[in-house]
Structure formats: structure tokens, C-alpha cells
């Protein structure tokens, strides 16, 4: 079975600062991996490396069959990521943000409104993102993930500041992704949530991963 993500002795530096080193692991279809570790341990850096937003400084990694060191827009378009801050354009409405994503990725534009309704933002669709709450912007982000149907989903503290219903939405996205043969890596400090949605656990400390039984 081809792995969706592999790390072979991968190290990552940010500037001169070593952040990750000696990463050896892989991710397969159906994996839902909970990534934990103290603040500043490099969890976001690991996710950004998996998203090919930063390149490994040593070692070799692959994501969706492509070399992490050279992967381009084509590979990245199959990865979905929710970072700390919602990725929306403040001057566009929530609906326009999603329609922009639909058009630029070649998805049906009508799907944007359907998904916005599905995440509970029907009444807020025409609200500008910079007038929307963090929770609304985050739900728009979640709708974006569903719209783009990525094979690898990376969630960086995506549940922070969300109500119960929105946290459930994240769980739904995780289920949809794995049912479609994808995988998820999720960072959260909510231990109970990790227990409920993940089937593997990575603990990051001293710049390297220790796999624990889920």
C-alpha cells in the first residue's frame, strides 16, 4: 500500500534554529493521527513540512507520492490545512470567500452555498469575513476543506475557540476524509477529543516523534 506521507530521517531548521530532527514515520490511508507535545516543540512546523510549505533541511520525505523537497502546486492542491488563524479574505463575504476557492480550484460554484448552509452559516453567508466571528470564519474554513476534498488533511489547533457543534463538524470532516481513503493529522491540546477521533498518537518532544498506542 502506498503511504500518503513518509518521513525518512527528516530534519527541519527554521533559520539557524533546529526544530525537528530524525523524523522516521509514515502515514497511510485511514490514519487519524493525534499530534501532541509541549508549546514550541515544533508541531506546527511538522504540519507545515507535511504540507510542503517548508522544505526538509535533511533527510527525505514524500507526500502523496511526491518528494517533499520539490513538490509543487499540483501536490499541494491535494492537501488541506487549517492553521491557527482562519484563512479568509476580510473584505469578501463568507460566501464569496468560498466561491473564490470553488472557482480557482475548478469546483462547481453552487457547491459553495450548499456547503456554507451545511456548516450552519446560511444566515451569515453575506457577512464580510472581517465582520464575522472567529467561529464563523473557522466554519468557512471547514467548508473549504470539504469543498476541496483533500487526500491529506492537516489540522493545527483547529478546534480552538469553537463551540460543540463546530467541533463536531471537524469530526465529520475527519470521517469523510478517511472514508474517502485519505488521512488526517490533528494537533490539539484537548486530550479527550484526541481519544475520541484518533487511531494513532504521535508525541513530539526534543524535536522528534515518539509513537504511542492510541
Amino acid at each position, binding site marked *: 500500500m502506498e503511504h500518503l506521507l513518509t518521513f525518512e530521517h527528516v530534519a527541519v*531548521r*527554521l*533559520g*539557524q*534554529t*533546529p*526544530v*525537528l*530532527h530524525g523524523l522516521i514515520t509514515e502515514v497511510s490511508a485511514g490514519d487519524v493521527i493525534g499530534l501532541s*507535545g*509541549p*508549546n*514550541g*516543540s*515544533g508541531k506546527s512546523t511538522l504540519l507545515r513540512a507535511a504540507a510542503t510549505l517548508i522544505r526538509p533541511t535533511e533527510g527525505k520525505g514524500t507526500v502523496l507520492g511526491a518528494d517533499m523537497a520539490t513538490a509543487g502546486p499540483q501536490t499541494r492542491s491535494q492537501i488541506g490545512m487549517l492553521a491557527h488563524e482562519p484563512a479568509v479574505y476580510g473584505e469578501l463575504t463568507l460566501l464569496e470567500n468560498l466561491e473564490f476557492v470553488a472557482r480557482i480550484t475548478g469546483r462547481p460554484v453552487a457547491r459553495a452555498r450548499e456547503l456554507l448552509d451545511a456548516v450552519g452559516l446560511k444566515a451569515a453567508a453575506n457577512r464580510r469575513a472581517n465582520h464575522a466571528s472567529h467561529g464563523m470564519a473557522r466554519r468557512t474554513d471547514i467548508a473549504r476543506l470539504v469543498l476541496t476534498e483533500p487526500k491529506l488533511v492537516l489540522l493545527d489547533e483547529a478546534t480552538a475557540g469553537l463551540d460543540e457543534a463546530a467541533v463536531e463538524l471537524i469530526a465529520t470532516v475527519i470521517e469523510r476524509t478517511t472514508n474517502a481513503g485519505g488521512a488526517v493529522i490533528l494537533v490539539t491540546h484537548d486530550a479527550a477529543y484526541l481519544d475520541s477521533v484518533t487511531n494513532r498518537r504521535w508525541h*513530539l*518532544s*526534543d*524535536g522528534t516523534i515518539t509513537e504511542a498506542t492510541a
Partner: protein
Amino acid sequence: MKSRYIFSGLAVAGLAYGFFLAASHPPDQLQLEFVRISHVHVASAWVAFLAFGVTMIAGLAWLATKRFVMDHIAAASAELGVFFTGLALLTGMIWGDAVWGRAWDWGDARMASTALMFFVYIGYLALRRSILDPEIRARRASILGAVAALQVPLVYFSVTLWRTLHPTPSIRPDDVTMPTGQLVAMLTNLAAFTLVYVVFTTWRTRQISTEAILEARDASELAPAGRTIEPPTLGPAT
């Protein structure tokens, strides 16, 4: 090591001889004694153009090969380029004041363009200082260097394209209008200044490379970023 001293010695000797020739040839018919400043001015301007060309080429070489010594050469060359551009402007103003009666003339496109080239490379050095990550710094600086180097041919062609007070080139492939004594002095100073540039660029490149090696060595001894945060020890208020 030996070749370094030989080149340095040649540069010093070349400069001394060039200055001697500049001081000893007969005065110019029109510019009188002030023509002697032109030897430093022209040589400085030539080296400034050369330096910025090297910055561009070295930057592109870094983009192609990712060898950091190329980035170090680009940085060193830009620093020298700023110095020699400043020297060209200063000597140009002294020359202009003596020959034309004014240190600065806005009708002189080449002088104005050279001054702007000076600011472009100040910006280049400011950009390099603003970025700590060596790879990001090398990447952005090399691209800026390539764009900035577009200005160099513009500065040169401005003399012929825009009729200004600045003398048209006296040394053209098909004709040389300069007296022999002046010509020899000018060419000697051109060669000497070029050698000075090469020597200083080599020294400075070596210095930058050494600093980078030391930084990398210090960084390799750094603990991973995560170890810099420790468990808190703050207790409840008593």
C-alpha cells in the same frame, strides 16, 4: 595564502603607479589640472558597474547551484560597489565643480542615474540585513540583485542617448580622442582599481563565509527549539 599577498602587493603597486601617472601627465587643454581627478572618477565608476554586475551574476549562480559562497560573493561585491559608487559620485562632484562650475547638474543624466544606483544598492544591503535566515536572504537578495543590475546598462547608455553635459565616451572601439599620456594613466588606473576590487572582494567574501561557518557551528550546538520552554514553576499567590 601566498597568492593573496602577491595580488595585494600588485594592487598597491598598481594604485601607486596609476596615481603617479595621473599626477605626472601634461594638463588637459580644456580641463587643465582638473583632468587628474577624472582618472579616479572613471576608474571608480567602472568598478562600481563591475561590482554590481558581479553581484547579479553571483546571485544568479546561487539560485542555480545553491552554493552559499556565491551569495557571499554577491554580498561582498555589493558592499564594494556601494563604496566605489560613492567615490565616483564624490569625485564626480569635485570634478564638476572645478570644470563646469557646479557640483551637481540635473541635466546630467548619468550622474543622477549613478546616484540612484547608489540608493538601489543601499536598499539591497538593507534587505540583506533585515533577513536572518541565510537561505531566504540569499534567495531574495539574488532576485533583487538581478533586477537592480538592469539599471547598469541604462546608466551607461544614458550618456549617448540623452545629450547632457557629461562628456561622451572618449574611449570608443573605433576612435580614441584622449591624449596618449592621459590614456595610459586612465587605463592603468582602471586596471589598478579593478585589482583593488578583486582583492577586497576576495577578503570580504572570505570574512562573510567564515562568519557563516561560525554561525552554523553555533547553531548545530543549539538544542532543538522545543527544549527552550520549560515547565512553569509559578505557584498560587500566598
